[in-house]
Structures are given as C-alpha cells and as structure tokens.
C-alpha cells in the first residue's frame, strides 16, 4: 500500500481535528499548519503510527512574516518517510513577542543543531532544548539577524538612486 497525501490528511484530521489547518500541496508536498502547543504531539503521532512512520527529520528552519499579527514566526519541519518515500512539511506559527515552541530533540538528535541554528537566527525559544545557544553567530550577539527588521542594505540611504535597479 502506498502512502498517499489523502491518507495522511485524513489521519491527521481524525486525530487532531481543528489543531491541523491550512492543508495545501505546493509542488505535491503535503503542507499543513499545527497549533503551536501541538507540534510535538503531531511529530510524535507521525513518528509512532505504523502507517505514517515519518521518522527522518530532513530539515528544520523558520520564516519571519512581520505582517502576520501574533504569528510572526513560523517554524518549518520537513519530515521524510524513507520507506514509502513520502515527504511532508509541517508548520507551527509563534508570536514574536513570546516565541515558545516545544523542542523536537527528544525525538530526533538531528534537531539539536537545527534548533540551535533556528534560535540563532530567529530567536525561537525551543522549550526543553538541552543546550539552546547560538551555533553560527558569535555568542555576544544580542539580536536575531534573519528577522525581517534587519535589512541587508540601509533602505533609507539617499546617496544612491536605485530606482533603475528594481530596488525601489
């Protein structure tokens, strides 16, 4: 039996109901959003159920959406069922004022540095992480550089006319 997106969808909705939302399939990969306090439960569910068995954490990262009120930060998990060769993408939104999300280090050792990296760049506080400190940036850094409020170039500089270059 091959694992289909419909089956995963049905299983998730049956178990978690309204906590799983925004089910879409960009480029064929099932993508869904879970409530922030349910992320670990969903990860455990996807990991433990024999017919789902998403036991490989491919990637963990975050995205910053400053315009989304009270859910500015989005933690993105890419999970892979290596046997059935199916991938899913799971998202959990957190407010920038208190970005607490449960850690996945208990399930995946791989999550350790990935969460440290995500903390380093976005300031997501992974609750329960054994060693949540910066990994790529210097320890003394007091801001989270990948957030959108830190533009690469000073947007207000007036000594350069960038209109021709599509930089507005």
């Amino acid at each position, binding site marked *: 039996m091959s694992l289909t997106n419909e089956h995963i969808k049905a299983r998730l909705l049956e178990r978690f109901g309204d906590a799983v939302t925004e089910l879409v399939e*960009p*480029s064929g*990969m099932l*993508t869904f959003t879970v409530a922030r306090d349910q992320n670990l439960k969903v990860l455990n569910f996807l990991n433990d159920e024999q017919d789902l068995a998403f*036991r*490989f*954490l*491919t*990637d963990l*990262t975050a*995205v*910053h959406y400053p315009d989304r009120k009270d859910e500015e930060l989005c933690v*993105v998990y*890419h999970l892979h069922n*290596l046997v059935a*060769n199916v*991938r899913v*993408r799971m998202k959990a939104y957190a407010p920038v004022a208190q970005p607490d999300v449960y850690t996945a280090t208990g399930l*995946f*050792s*791989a999550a*350790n*540095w*990935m969460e440290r*990296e995500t903390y380093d*760049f976005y300031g997501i506080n992974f609750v329960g992480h054994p060693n949540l400190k*910066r*990994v*790529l*940036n*210097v320890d003394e850094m007091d801001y989270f*550089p*990948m957030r959108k409020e*830190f*533009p*690469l*170039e000073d947007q207000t500089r007036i000594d350069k006319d960038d209109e021709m*270059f*599509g930089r507005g």
Partner: protein
Amino acid sequence: MSEHNHIRLPEGSIGKTTTTLNLGPTHPATHGVFQNILELDGERIVAAEATVGYIHRAFEKIAERRPLYQITTLTDRLNYCSSPINNMGWHLTCEKLLGVTTPKRVDYLRVIVMELARITDHLVCTSIVGVDAGAFTGFLYVMQYRELVYEIYEEICGARLTTNMGRVGGFERNFSQAVWDKLERFLEEYPKAQKELEALLTRNRIFYERTRGTGSITADRALNYGFTGPNLRATGVDYDVRVHEPYSSYQDFDFQIPVGKTGDNYDRFMVRTEEIWQSLSIIRQAYRKIQDFKGSEADVYHADVPEYYLPEKQDVYTKMEALIWHFKIVMGETDIPPGEVYQAVEGGNGELGFYLISDGGRAPYRLHFRRPCFIYYQAYEEIIKGSMLSDAIITMSSLNLIAGEMDA
C-alpha cells in the same frame, strides 16, 4: 631550601587527571575552520565539544536580496569541493518553482557535470583519509585528475573552483569539442589512478587497522542524526536522492547504490570509493546517450525560457534588445512567481536541499539550504567519545566535513 615559586600552575591543575586540548579552529588536522575542545585522558577522548561558525557568511540573509542568478554564486561556496552539484541543484530549484522542463540532452549534460563533481568530491575525501592515516602519496597521485576535471569545468564555464556553472533551463553554451576530448582522456586515464589509490589503501594493513572499527555509528543513530549520503550508506541504509527522487533524468541510468555495514571509517571510505566507479559508469552512459542525439537535437543545450535564460553572449554584445534583456534578468527586473518548493539533490556529502519561498518579488522571500555537513557534524561528539585522538582526526576526514557547507 628556597621555595620554587617561579612556576605558577592554574588552580586545581595538579589534582586534575585529564587534559584539555583545544584543537583548531585553524589547525592542519582539522582540514578547515573547526574548533574542537577535547577533554583527554592520556590519548583517549572523554568529552568533546565542537564549535562551528567560523566562516559563516550569512548566505541565507544575502539571498533574500538577490535575484536568482546572483544566488548561484552563493551556492558555489557551500560545498566548494563539488560546486557544480550546488549550482545545478539551485537551478533545478528555480526550474521547479518556475515550472520549466528541461530537454533530455540538458539533463544528460548536467548528469555528466554532477558526476564529475561527485568524483572530485569523493577523491579528495578518500585520499585525505589516506593522508591522515599516514599515506601522502595517494593524495598527490589522484590530485592531478582533479586538475583534469577542473580543466573540464574551465572549458564549460570558464571557472575552476567556484564554478557558477549553468543557467536556469540549461547551460550558457554548448560543450565544446575540448570538453569531450578532455572527458575522454579522463575516462581513459583516471580509472588507472583510482586503482592505484585503492591498491595502496584498501588492503593495506596499516590503513586497515587505523580505519576499521573506528569512528563507527549504527544505522539507527545515523538516521536519528539526519545522516544522508555516503555516511548514511556506510551504515547500511540505501537512501540516495538520485534514486528516491530522480532529478535531471537520473531514472534513465543504470547504477548501483553501494552500502556499507558497520558505518566505520573503513566503510565510509569504501562506499565513496565504489561510488566513484558508479559515477564513472554513469558518465559513460550519459556520454553514449548524448552521442545518440542526431540533427537539431544534438545542439540543444538549454530549455526555451526567455524570461529567465540569459541571451547568447554574442547577441548581448551586438544587439540592443539582448543587452537590455540580459541586464533585466541579471538585475532582477523580472519578478519570480510566488510559491514554495523544496528541491533536493544528492550532493557529495548527502542530501543537499533548497527550501525556497517566493512571495512574487524579485528575490526569494526565504531561502534555506539544507546542508548535510551541518546536520551530521553534530554526531561527531558522540562518535569520537571514548576513542583515541588520532582516530578522531581520521573520523573527521572520513566524514568529509566541508566548512563552507557547514557554516553557509
């Protein structure tokens, strides 16, 4: 008797039974910028702490302000031992977002370049394992063939190390006869050098003793740690992106995925060695397939995507429209469509993933690189704990850590 107070030792150092050794960040044994703080009991490692980030260059942040073609140059600098794979992976990501399908000949040309890159990546790693076990000769012997591959890159794109090769939809120009001549020379001569390297190492008693049973990891732990690529296959898991999610027409080729058993340094070495032979076979198959294209098909080297494929260079220099068009693409005047894609390719070290979110602007809204090195290096502390210092160094080289890829 006067007091010997001219030597001052740190507090508590007399009673201490272990030694703290600060290995790196720049140390010949670390093959790059890594720092390992080791707690040693004699020569045995009791605890280790790895520190990374010494060459972090904020590529993901920079990419949020760069149009597609300006990001290709960033990908070069991830795993610089196999830059073309990164370039192709990035272009495949763009093509997935833009919905571009490439002609078969382009796919096969890409396969040739990617497999050449894989060979150079693996031959550096396997010969460096030899160097760390005390055999410098093999390294120098195969290195001349890496030079030959770099010459092939040079004929294709003009660059050697940071290649910036290819375009969205294909290549900037067709492969010249010089490419094919050099490729034939490589296919003819390289296997002999590779055999010499294997004759030097695979059954060598010293190498055998140094690598077997050291730096091993079980399949279970490796999967839990997110291992991919040769390091995962050395533990016995046959996961290969080329087979599981074929890109660039890998499904048209007949090749095997070598797997190991114990996940130790020797298995990692052997898996990479065998992969070199598989890559050679893939290159031969692709070359044969390319020779089968006849007529106008034999000159195809890019897909028809005028919005993103840069105009021919001679047109850019002589025609006004082509020049404007070139300028618009390079400077990011053409917006990319909104979307969210994840594209993985089998890099030299494992699954190299590109997670791209576009909001419809000129540059990605978010671009994340899944760097295999960064993910599996966190297992290093666990792998080397309890082993000898010299084994830790050989483990580091057999894991094939590339600082550029790890720190992005």
